[in-house]
């Protein structure tokens, strides 16, 4: 699975939405795809566990889309 696929799988499992998120939703603003601040925290906790990383607090306000989370994961992995 690619990083994007893993990220979407985590978000869909944790958020348990009626309409699952797709690739097209990745670059959209979190608010525009119905992810509020608490949903986002839930996704980040799961992402940290899945990828065995720690996302610094100062990075969180900068992330406005799931694509930006994926980009951060790419940076951490590299």
């Amino acid at each position, binding site marked *: 699975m690619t990083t994007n696929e893993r990220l979407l799988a985590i978000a869909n499992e944790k958020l348990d939405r009626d309409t699952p998120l797709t690739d097209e939703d990745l670059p959209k603003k979190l608010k525009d795809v119905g992810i*509020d601040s*608490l949903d986002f*925290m*839930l996704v*980040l*906790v799961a992402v940290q566990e899945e990828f065995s990383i720690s996302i610094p*607090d100062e990075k969180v306000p900068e992330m406005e889309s799931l694509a930006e989370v994926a980009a951060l994961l790419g940076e951490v992995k590299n």
Partner: protein
Amino acid sequence: MACIREIGTATGAEVLDNSSRLEELDTSLEFLDEKIGTRTVARLGEGQTALSLAIEACRDLEARCAGALDAVGAVLFCTQTPDDGGIPHLSARLHRELDLDRDCGCFDVSLGCSGFVHSLAILSAMMQAQQFSRALLVTSDPYSRIIEPHDRNTVLLFGDAASATLLVNESIPGCFSPGPFSFCTLSAQGEAISNTTGTLRMNGRGVFDFAVRTVPAEIRKLLRDSGVGKDEVDVFLLHQGSQFIVQQLGRALGIPPGRVRLGLDGIGNTVSSSIPILLKDVLGQPGCRTAILCGFGVGLSVATTLLKRNTI
């Protein structure tokens, strides 16, 4: 063995309606309803204080249990926002207001959302060691005093309330007895909830992260050590941090939603009073024979215990 005889409660006389200032707080009705769990939170009314709320809770206790304030051997007052800087300590001031006996020990405990369960452990042990027959556990922590009115991390959540729990040193049939207890402190993350400038600061992500990683593990540990399966627990009374956090903890534990109680509506997160406010209702529900109590928050700390009804 100590048991919980009765609980009285009181809430702030005023109401802060956050639904009337959605734009100012960058929020939505959907967020308030589904994530916070309430559109309004209780606030101290004119002339109300931490002490006066506590007195109201004690009067409610007395109304529900005649003679509840007779022969009390100890008063534990749990608060982090005491009146007048905390000197004299509020338990002593409450002792005076309630005209309690001279040979009654009074002390305050500084803990936030894990305070009720910690205090239950302290008083249960003290009652057994000292062999006095009754103790009063009071929580009253009006966080509105330290909340910045435009800080959406805190103003949407916290409400002002108090509780007064009567503990008796005997196994009364049908009443709940607590124990064992477990405790956890992750002090390295303690700055996630702090008050260094007179204003409460909360790193919501830090607290959420702590709660979902630590609380389920602590509850599982207590159940394992008690030899009780999660399906044998009738009700889970978790600190009402927010509706979302309580629901996520229930989900992480694999508990059906109906067994994880919610109680933020109309009052908000009432710090150390949130668990006794939930428990007050459960006392009158004989079908609930076993309960888990878990408080978590400032410290960062977690305190957990199992309640079982004494057999009739």
